[in-house]
């Protein structure tokens, strides 16, 4: 029963991935700008432009271009960068690991700190520390990534001089961008955890757990937290697209050589194959994240597991 559920859910991924591919393909072709013009410069003659467009296959009808792109994709070929003239997969390969390192670190930070602050906030409801956490959470939720990044640079890089502010390098270089990306998520998760915990702590089974003589730690970390986490699990994966989105800005601010900064450059250069590939990858990861959210749900909540 459980296997069937997973297989069924897996097949339901194909449609959204297809839609993502169509969108990532067509959106870019809808915005004005011409890669041929970008490559050849302002003084190219119309003939030269037409010839290059023909060479790149850009004069074919859109659906033909789409199908040929998909056929190549099926063979694992992302195409060739119009600007750099190297295979897109080469360009992305080096960048992907940087982006994953950044988003992964931010994700882990978000959950460790988010849940901890949420629990503290819920168990010390209406205390000074609860209000403090709430205020900070609202603040960090509201701040844009670029501003947060610049402020962290200013404080820890320039004023205190304890952390590097730009480029890749050691793990120290990861700290500021990871917190820039992670802080708003810490805030969101802390708020969600607090709300869910408060809700769960009112439940009858919590009274039962206390009436059994269990110590607070067991009541809170076993009986309450497990139930409070159920609604949070979806968010655990649904936030992944936000992280990728935030990574685009954060990587640019910190000159972090990930996919985000590559994407920004490619968009400005109208480098269609690169943009399409990155959007498709991020889109697919998002769809997979949703899939994982569904699966984790069934693992943590036996009631959904049984419904199959």
């Amino acid at each position, binding site marked *: 029963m459980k296997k069937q559920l997973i297989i069924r859910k897996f097949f339901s991924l194909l449609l959204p991935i297809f839609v993502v591919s169509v969108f990532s393909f067509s959106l870019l072709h809808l915005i004005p700008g011409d890669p041929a013009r970008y490559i050849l410069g302002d003084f190219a003659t119309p003939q030269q432009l037409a010839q290059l467009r023909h060479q790149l296959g850009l004069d074919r009808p859109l659906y033909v271009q789409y199908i040929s792109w998909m056929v190549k994709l099926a063979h694992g070929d992302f195409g060739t960068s119009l600007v750099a003239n190297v295979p897109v997969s080469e360009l992305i390969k080096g960048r992907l690991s940087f982006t994953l390192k950044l988003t992964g670190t931010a994700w882990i930070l978000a959950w460790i700190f988010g849940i901890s602050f949420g629990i503290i906030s819920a168990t010390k409801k209406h205390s000074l520390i609860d209000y403090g956490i709430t205020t900070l959470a609202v603040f960090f939720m509201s701040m844009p990534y670029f501003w947060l990044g610049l402020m962290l640079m200013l404080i820890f890089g320039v004023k205190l001089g304890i952390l590097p502010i730009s480029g890749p390098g050691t793990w120290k270089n990861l700290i500021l961008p990871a917190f820039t990306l992670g802080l708003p998520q810490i805030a969101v998760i802390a708020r969600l955890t607090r709300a869910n915990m408060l809700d769960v702590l009112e439940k009858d089974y919590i009274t*039962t757990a206390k*009436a*059994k*003589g*269990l110590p607070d730690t067991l009541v809170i970390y076993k*009986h309450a937290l497990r139930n409070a986490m159920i609604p949070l699990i979806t968010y655990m994966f649904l936030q992944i697209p936000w992280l990728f989105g935030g990574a685009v800005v954060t990587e640019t601010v910190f000159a972090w050589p990930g996919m985000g900064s590559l994407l920004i450059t490619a968009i400005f250069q109208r480098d269609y194959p690169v943009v399409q590939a990155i959007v498709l990858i991020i889109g697919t990861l998002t769809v997979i994240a949703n899939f994982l959210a569904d699966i984790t749900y069934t693992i*943590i909540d036996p*009631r959904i597991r*049984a419904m199959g």
Partner: protein
Amino acid sequence: MGVILKIEDLYVDFKTERGLVKAIDGVTLEVKEGEVLALIGETGCGKSTISKAIMRLLPKNATVRGKIIYKGKNLLELPESEMRKIRGKEIGMIFQDPLTSLNPVFTVSNQMEEMFKIHKLPTRKSIFEEIVNLLKIVRIPDAESRAKSYPFELSGGMRQRVMVAMMLSSNPSLLIADEPTTALDVTIQAQIMNLMLELKRNFNTTILLITHNPGVVAEIADRVAVMYAGQIVEVAPVKEVFDNPLHPYTRSLMRALPKGHKTERELENILGRVPNLLTPPPGCRFHPRCPFADERCTGGKPEIKEVEPGHFVACYKVGGTRNE
């Protein structure tokens, strides 16, 4: 019979946004070893508040005054760590709604196992075998696979049996059953009640049964304490309460009961309504609805006194002046 639990002059107030709710107003009550004492009263009269006060599980907005003496110790003065050793081990508790009182995400055996681990209960075999054995005692069929089930896979009656089995695992001296059958349908109610009677006989467990169902009381209680609006108005052996109720409230309550056979008279209802506990009436809280009330009843709260052997009543109109 010794006294296992003695509640002395207990007051419980709840701080709410609309003011102070004076939920329990000077309750004094004794529970004797080995008996089933039924605490009966309308919804909202403070029955459950008393049970939660005994377990010290009242919410933070509650202030508790008075004494709750269990086996010589005042529970209200125990440090939290000592109290935890009493909860579950010495005093077990069963709740009203079996559908919500078990944790939905853990198996039955996982939740029962905690009792053994926390209270370091002695086991002859493995903990799992002990759990299966307990489930068999409460007559759960196919106990081994039920132990591995999640609560949502069991019916309401089954879940209440699981609660009973869980609270039984430590063989507590006192079992507080807070409306244990209210959420169940009638046939299941009878089964759970019989189960509790059996346990009382086999394990000599003292039971404090909280209910608003006089039928349940008649079936299993030895003594009955009647509550009205946060006060105890009458305490008597079960037969006395039904045959010879003395307090005006108990009397009108009994007249409001269907007797199970056709009678000439219509069922009576008690005139007026339950007072708002934000602004309870002074003195005897029943006086606004009492046909016999006079100035004395509005002045001070009547003391509860023994008017016949074992029969206690809190009323100025009962006792010395009863036959006037």
